[in-house]
């Protein structure tokens, strides 16, 4: 019976067996590498294990979003690095998207100057290796910033210096109430918008949703300030003298120059690719669509917002997802300019101090994989949402 099932004449078996063999061969290769590594590590007296994650790290990190100092564990240091990687990626993606969309639209502008400037920007920043751009922003652009005692002052509450950008620190009372009010405002805006859509679709009535939404967003949190005991004070950075010629700022929050340089480089670089995606997306929308929109009396902005962009997004999103993934992975170049991301902190310092190369590199690779897959899943969901729903 079984023999008959796996008969060569059986198409199912014919399809299955080569695949099974491929999987087997792949497994063998993996097992080969794993065993080889194990034997070699054994020979050289290196043990394998993740116990080191609980050991005290005993090195400090410049910049951390959670409480950390050298007395915390390597595991905690990993978390600090991971959060820093996520932070610079999120900032990078945010600005890359904004710059990318603006430049992409600008490249198609009727204004010759705007179109040319956008084109030059894309051609220059797209064709210079990212690591050089990072060095440029860090060592050339930021080097031009003044020392703290001559810092560029913004109304005496914020200072830009070579040691970083010092901004006021927010000190909240009853922050939770404020947060709840923000959520409430967003829910209200959601209902306003769906009401407006209904009105438009049923009666053709245009409601100025943008202004109403903005007012809601400001008004509801404002109420909490006035009546619910929410308050916000600022701690301003103050110049502090450390020695006759050495100054720094105390108080406030310091945005380190490494973060600024890296975020700038990543967003300026990735924006060029996004701009090209946007341009391709807009050009991909049929000319007839624009003409039809114009013929029913929509103005230029309305055509772009209501007719072109929704269709262009379908073309723009998939390649832009790739750019988001690239940006996240490219953030690992941070190590070159001492931004404490996961590669510098964990795959760098921690690896060095513990010598656990295989464990640490595996964890780091797995982390990037998880990050990338999360972005992919989110963008695929968004893509599906934006896709044309056939009715």
């Amino acid at each position, binding site marked *: 019976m079984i023999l008959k099932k796996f008969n060569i004449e059986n198409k199912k078996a014919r399809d299955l067996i080569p695949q099974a063999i491929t999987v087997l061969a792949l497994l063998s290769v993996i097992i080969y*590498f794993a065993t080889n590594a194990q034997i070699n590590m*054994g020979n050289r007296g290196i043990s394998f294990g993740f116990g080191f994650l609980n050991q005290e790290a*005993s090195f400090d990190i410049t910049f951390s979003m959670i409480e950390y100092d050298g007395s915390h564990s390597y595991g905690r240091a990993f978390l600090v690095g991971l959060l820093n990687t996520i932070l610079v990626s999120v900032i990078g993606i945010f600005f890359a998207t904004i710059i990318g969309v603006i430049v992409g639209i600008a490249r198609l502008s009727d204004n010759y100057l705007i179109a040319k400037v956008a084109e030059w920007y894309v051609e220059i920043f797209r064709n210079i290796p990212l690591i050089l751009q990072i060095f440029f922003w860090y060592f050339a652009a930021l080097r031009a910033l003044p020392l703290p005692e001559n810092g560029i002052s913004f109304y005496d509450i914020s200072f830009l210096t070579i040691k970083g950008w010092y901004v006021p620190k927010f000190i909240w009372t009853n922050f939770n109430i404020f947060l709840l009010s923000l959520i409430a405002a967003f829910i209200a805006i959601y209902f306003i918008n769906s009401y407006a859509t209904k009105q438009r679709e049923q009666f053709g009535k245009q409601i100025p949703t943008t202004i109403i939404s903005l007012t809601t967003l400001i008004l509801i949190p404002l109420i909490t300030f006035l009546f619910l005991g929410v308050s916000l004070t600022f701690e301003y950075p103050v110049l502090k003298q450390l020695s006759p*010629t050495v100054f720094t700022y105390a108080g406030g929050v310091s945005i380190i120059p490494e973060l600024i340089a890296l975020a700038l480089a990543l967003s300026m670089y990735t924006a060029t690719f996004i701009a090209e995606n946007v341009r391709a997306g807009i050009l991909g929308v049929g000319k007839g669509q624009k003409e039809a929109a114009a013929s029913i009396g929509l103005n230029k902005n309305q055509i772009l917002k209501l007719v072109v962009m929704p269709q262009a997004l379908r073309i723009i999103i998939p390649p832009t997802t790739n750019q988001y993934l690239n940006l996240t992975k490219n953030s690992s170049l941070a190590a070159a*300019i001492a931004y404490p991301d996961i590669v*510098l902190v964990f795959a760098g*310092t921690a690896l060095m101090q513990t010598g656990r190369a295989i464990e640490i590199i595996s964890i780091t690779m797995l982390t990037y994989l998880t990050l990338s897959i999360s972005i992919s899943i989110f963008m695929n969901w968004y893509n599906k949402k934006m896709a044309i729903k056939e009715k």
Partner: protein
Amino acid sequence: MMKYIKTWILVGFASLLLVACGQGGGGSGSKKSKTLDNTKKAGFVKCGVSQGLPGFSNADEAGNWSGIDVDVCRAVAAAVLGDADKVKYTPLSAKERFTALTSGEIDVLARNTTWTLSRDADIGLTFVGVNFYDGQGFMVRKNSGINSVNDFKNGISACTNTGTTTELNMRDFFNSKNISYEPIAFEKADEVVAAYDAGRCDTYTTDKSGLAAQRTKMSNPDEHKVLPETISKEPLGPVVRQGDAVWEDIVRWSLNTMIEAEEYGVNSSNASSLKDSENPAIKRLVGSEGELGAAFGLDNDWSLRIIEQVGNYGESYKKHIADTGILPNRGPNQLWTKGGILYVPPAR
């Protein structure tokens, strides 16, 4: 149809074979030195050095490496292969160095590496000796008004290299002084120098010899000074892979020979004329008495070749560290007979 079956069977066997290879690979250590055999077969010593630290390991425009770390590798090449120039140098960052050694990419690591317990015991390495006694210090701008580490105040920013003991010492130091500081750790020394030079940080901390060497790279070296205090012990020395005792001995005694040669006044110019010396210790050094090389499978002239081709420790120090103006004063790196702490077991 038979044709298909044959193909499948073949593929199946191939994958089984791969698994078998996996079990067989690796091999195990034996009494003989695998590293020595491989080195002789390759015809050069695989040596890991820094990416450029004047005095220790630095390449000139033509790509020729020199420095006291480089001389350790040259000594090993002279002893093993008979020619000090038969060395293949691999520049490594602080982060890469140990992996390069344990993975077999290099066989000797001579890269101003601090000997510590955890490095020696934990990660499959063996330190064979000390070729430079160093300590961590701080560099500041001369006009800063900071004259001692006691002038450091809360909020000071300090640049250093990542993946080094200096990163840990720095924390210990600032913690013990109860000073909050901003640590900025770069991967490459050149970037640390650039950032410090630009004013990103107020002080630059690393081994004092490193500070002295890097100062020469600043845009204006005279504007900077090294503070007098030393905050740590940094015995720098060559490292080998754990598990090859013979190779370990060869590297250890190549270094020891250079130091012992200085102690007995044997140098590159007088070594061969001392074959008939009265002093048996000198005769052993130049190979005219005893069979010392045989212990690790080398001929009897191995140490003579080291002294002739590379020179003794004093010559090496003078050429690379003193005459280049990095650290003219030998300090602790003087022989024990002259007030230093260089002391090696006797070669007999």
